[in-house]
C-alpha cells in the first residue's frame, strides 16, 4: 500500500466519511423514517425503527474496512448515541452499547472469515451481496441480543431491531444501487 494511503490525513478522511454517513443515516432514520412509521403504524409503540439505515452503513463499512471500521465509525456512533439519548451516553450501559455497536460488525466478519467463509472485497472477484445480507442478519441478531441485554429492553424490541436492521441494510443497498445507476447514466 502506498505511503499517502497510510497517512493520518487518509485515516481522517475515512473517519469523516464513514462517521458522517452514519450520522446522516441516523438523522434520516429519526427525522424522516420514524415519523412516517408512527403515522403508518400508530399501534407500534416501540422505540425501534423498522427501517434502520445506520445498520446498513455499519455493515458496509465493516465489510470494506474490516477492523479499521471501529475507528472510522466510533465518532459517528458516539455522536449518534448523544443525539438519541443525550448526556446519558456516559452511563455504563450506554458505553457498553456503543462498544457492542462498534465491535460486533467487524468481529462477525472476521469470525465468518476464520470459519472459512471469505466474503471480503477482492479485486479479482465480484462481491456476493446476498452473503453480505446474511452476515448483516447475523450481526443484527448478535448485536440486538447484546445491546438489548445491555440496555435492558423489552423482548418485543429484539424482533423490531432485527426487522429494522434487515430492511435498513437492504434499502440502503437499494438506494446506493439506484444512485450508482443514475450516476452511470448521467
Amino acid at each position, binding site marked *: *500500500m*502506498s505511503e499517502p*494511503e497510510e497517512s493520518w490525513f*487518509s485515516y481522517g*478522511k475515512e473517519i469523516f466519511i464513514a462517521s458522517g454517513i452514519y450520522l446522516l443515516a441516523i438523522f434520516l432514520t429519526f427525522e424522516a423514517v420514524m415519523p412516517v412509521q408512527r403515522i403508518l403504524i400508530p399501534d407500534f409503540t416501540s422505540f425501534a425503527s423498522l427501517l434502520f439505515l445506520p445498520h446498513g452503513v455499519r455493515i*458496509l463499512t465493516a465489510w*470494506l*474496512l474490516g477492523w479499521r471500521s471501529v475507528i472510522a465509525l466510533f465518532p459517528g456512533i458516539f455522536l449518534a448515541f448523544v443525539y438519541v439519548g443525550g448526556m446519558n451516553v456516559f452511563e455504563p450501559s450506554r458505553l457498553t452499547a456503543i462498544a457492542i455497536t462498534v465491535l460486533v460488525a467487524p468481529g462477525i466478519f472476521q469470525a465468518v472469515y476464520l470459519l472459512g467463509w471469505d466474503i471480503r*472485497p477482492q*479485486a479479482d472477484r*465480484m*462481491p*456476493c*451481496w*446476498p452473503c*453480505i445480507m446474511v452476515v448483516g442478519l447475523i450481526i443484527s441478531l448478535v448485536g440486538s441480543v447484546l445491546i438489548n441485554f445491555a440496555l435492558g429492553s423489552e423482548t418485543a424490541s429484539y424482533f423490531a431491531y432485527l426487522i429494522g436492521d434487515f430492511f435498513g441494510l437492504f434499502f440502503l*443497498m*437499494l438506494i*446506493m*444501487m439506484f444512485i*450508482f*445507476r443514475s450516476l*452511470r*447514466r448521467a
Partner: protein
Amino acid sequence: MTRISKLTELKKLMRGMEYSMGLEDLTTVERDIYCAASELAASSEGAETVHMLEHVLVTNVSRPTFFRALKSLVNKGYLSNRDEACRGCYTVHKPYA
C-alpha cells in the same frame, strides 16, 4: 486497499445486486446478441461476428444496430476482443459472477 478500490468494490457490489434483480442496463438487442454469443462460445473458444449474425436471435437485427449493440456490449464488459489478429472474434464474460 486504496480509496478508489473501495469505491470500486462498492460499485461492483451494487452492479451485482442490479444484475440479480434483472435491472442490468442491456437493451433487447444487446441481450439477444449476448445470448447468441454465449451459446456460440459454449461450443467453441469464443464467438465470431459472422456466426453471431447468422444466429436465430440476431437474424432480424439490422447490421448497423447489430454493430452498435456489439460495441456497447464490449464497452459494458460483457464481450471483449479475443486477439488483435482476429478482429471479429469475441470472448464472452459472465456479467458480475
